[in-house]
């Protein structure tokens, strides 16, 4: 498949992040790219998804015609509930989020930097959608994973020494999975863990503005 294809990138990133999940995890997936993770849960494990508008235990999207107007996720999309799910109010939902009870949150980002800072809610001078639940999610989840394309549509690195956009949270990001690489924050740098099939270490260095730690074995990851 073409490594520049949008759907390919989505599956690549979603599938790789799904490998971070453990049996019994409670997870919140952000709107957009992060939702792809739910399609790749490894066989043999159960993962419980929260949607912060008010449900623990989100199930798959309903079949066409079975949509329930009172069953939506935080993106406004129709959902079902799994057996054993629970409906919660917004204060309870954010107590779960802020209180450190979620094992993982997966969010998109405009920029991430090597101090673990994240920017994903505001481009000054342009649109201000608001942060919704993102600031609480990154503040409270045990593990913060960023799912995004490595570079913006103009080819500029989104992985920086220092974010230039207004921050969502300071020092909270643990892991980044892009269409090119898997990297974790370590000692105020990004340690390169894995490279997507079709790319070289040189490609990653060229596409990354942040300081990288490149040492030891670096594996490949792909869609298969």
């Amino acid at each position, binding site marked *: 498949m073409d490594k520049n294809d949008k759907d390919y990138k989505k599956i690549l990133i979603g599938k790789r992040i799904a490998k971070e999940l453990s049996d019994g995890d409670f997870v919140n997936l952000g709107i957009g790219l992060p939702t792809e993770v739910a399609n790749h849960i490894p066989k043999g494990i159960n993962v419980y998804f929260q949607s912060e508008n*008010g449900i623990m235990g989100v199930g798959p999207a309903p079949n066409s015609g079975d949509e329930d*107007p009172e069953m*939506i996720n935080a993106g406004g999309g129709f959902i079902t509930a799994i057996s054993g799910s629970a*409906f919660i109010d*917004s204060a309870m939902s954010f107590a779960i989020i802020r209180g450190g009870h979620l094992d993982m949150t997966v969010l998109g980002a405009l920029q991430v930097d090597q101090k673990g800072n994240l920017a994903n809610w505001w481009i000054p001078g342009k649109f201000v959608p*608001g942060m919704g639940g993102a600031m609480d999610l990154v503040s409270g989840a045990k593990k913060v994973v960023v799912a995004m394309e490595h570079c913006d549509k103009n080819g500029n690195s989104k992985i920086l020494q220092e974010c230039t956009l207004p921050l969502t949270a300071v020092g909270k990001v643990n892991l980044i999975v892009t269409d090119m690489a898997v990297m974790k924050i370590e000692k105020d740098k990004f340690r390169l863990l894995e490279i997507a099939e079709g790319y070289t270490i040189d490609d990653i260095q060229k596409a990354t503005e942040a300081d990288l730690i490149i040492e030891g074995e670096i594996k490949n990851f792909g869609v298969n």
Partner: protein
Amino acid sequence: MPKIISSKEAAALIKPHNRILFGGFLTVGCAENIIDELVKTGTKDLHLIAIASDYEHKGVGRLVVNNQIKSAQLSHLGTNKSTQAQMNSGQIEVEIVPQGTLMERIRAKGAGLGGILTPTGVGTVIEEGKEKFIVDGKVFILEKAISADFAIIKAKKADKHGNLVYSKTARNSNPIMAMSADITIVEVDEIVEIGELSPEEIITPGIFVDYIVLSGLPK
């Protein structure tokens, strides 16, 4: 005992400059019948407090489109272009509040607290102009309680005491907002006799409810 009124009577209670909590999340769990009537009254200069400003054609977003909102506290406005446009032109003054913080600031008012200490927003623009506290080595922002004249919320059922039960993800901000305004108006799909709801299933006790509006009553 709460009073049962029509959506038109409910809308007539709202006056210019009132601060109003609107329950719902992207219109799910939103008191659409009361908002219908409020749009008809055209009452202006309202202060809107809600999770999101919904859509231009649905939910509280219609009040924005109808130029009835003077200021707002919201956590998300990306689904309504009118809110963005009016914010840019200076017509609406918007405070953007992280969603969890918004809920706790509202809940704090209802619970008699002056505010809450939250780690959300530390090191971001959200902390600007606010006091910070260190508790057991961790930094928190003081976020003050949010007060309101009215809460306009939606539940599935009320009994005549105003005890409320909700439905699925339509619960969201409604039970929090029910606690926190001077006057709470709830729109429901069904009103039942006292004793018909099990005390175990009631999420909002009737003590918080002042007026009940039945959805679909003649307007």
